[in-house]
């Protein structure tokens, strides 16, 4: 995995709901600016601006196909971020599942004391 992947930019890029929706659309397959602009009811320049942010974050790439420039999800960018969040999530899920058990034990002790 490339160390040059800019995770700061990745997180910033994902902070915007429109950009996340664009990524969701691209997860289904590549699309041009025009194709992306339709479902979002946005102007082409507005979409282009979002694409630029996503591209600079390394999350998408553009392919040359004659006069078309379809955008695609970049695996590397997605993976880097995905993995980092997944690690954190997994550790937290484990912790809190354990805490559920600890809290249940604390409560039954309380109950016994009150009797």
């Amino acid at each position: 995995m490339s160390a040059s992947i800019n995770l700061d930019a990745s997180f910033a890029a994902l902070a915007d709901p429109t950009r996340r929706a664009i990524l969701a659309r691209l997860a289904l397959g590549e699309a041009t600016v025009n194709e992306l602009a339709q479902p979002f009811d946005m102007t082409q320049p507005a979409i282009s601006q979002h694409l630029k942010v996503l591209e600079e974050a390394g999350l998408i790439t553009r392919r040359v196909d004659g006069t078309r420039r379809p955008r695609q999800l970049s695996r590397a960018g997605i993976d880097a971020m995905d993995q980092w969040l997944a690690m954190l999530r997994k550790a937290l899920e484990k912790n809190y599942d354990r805490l559920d058990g600890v809290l249940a034990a604390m409560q039954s002790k309380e109950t016994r004391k009150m009797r």
Partner: protein
Amino acid sequence: MSKLTLKTEGDTHIIVTRHFAAPPEAVYRAHTDPKIVQQWMLGPEGWTMPVCSADVRPGGKFRYEWKHPKKGGFYLTGEFVELKPFSKIVHVERMHLPDPTPDNHIETTFAPDGAGTLMTMRMTLPDEKTRSMMLATGMEHGMEDSYVRLESMIGDVIASPSR
């Protein structure tokens, strides 16, 4: 439903929420009493926390040490910034691997939620260097099997566009 949610906010924060079937008093205690923390804040399987000490007052320090039979160990130090029983904890922490990572600022709140508690934890993301390091550490430990599909994260956002 006690499912964890994890969302990014801007480019600098991560927000984690989790419901617990116990009142805020108990969940707050479980986060501040070192004897209780030691029982659950262990991360992935195989790790234990032989050292867990905390001076629970504003400005007070804490230290958690983790050990793994094969992977060695590391420790974390931090200070409490604000403690509001039983609703809020603000603290800073850093990991020592063994070189210290930059300070991570964490705000945890506990709110009554039905008969239980909704915990919300707001973390400042470490800088890029730390993230790359954490990423590298995770890969080394083979944690990538825990894959959370980005698509599911995107799905959450589409389901709640008012975010």
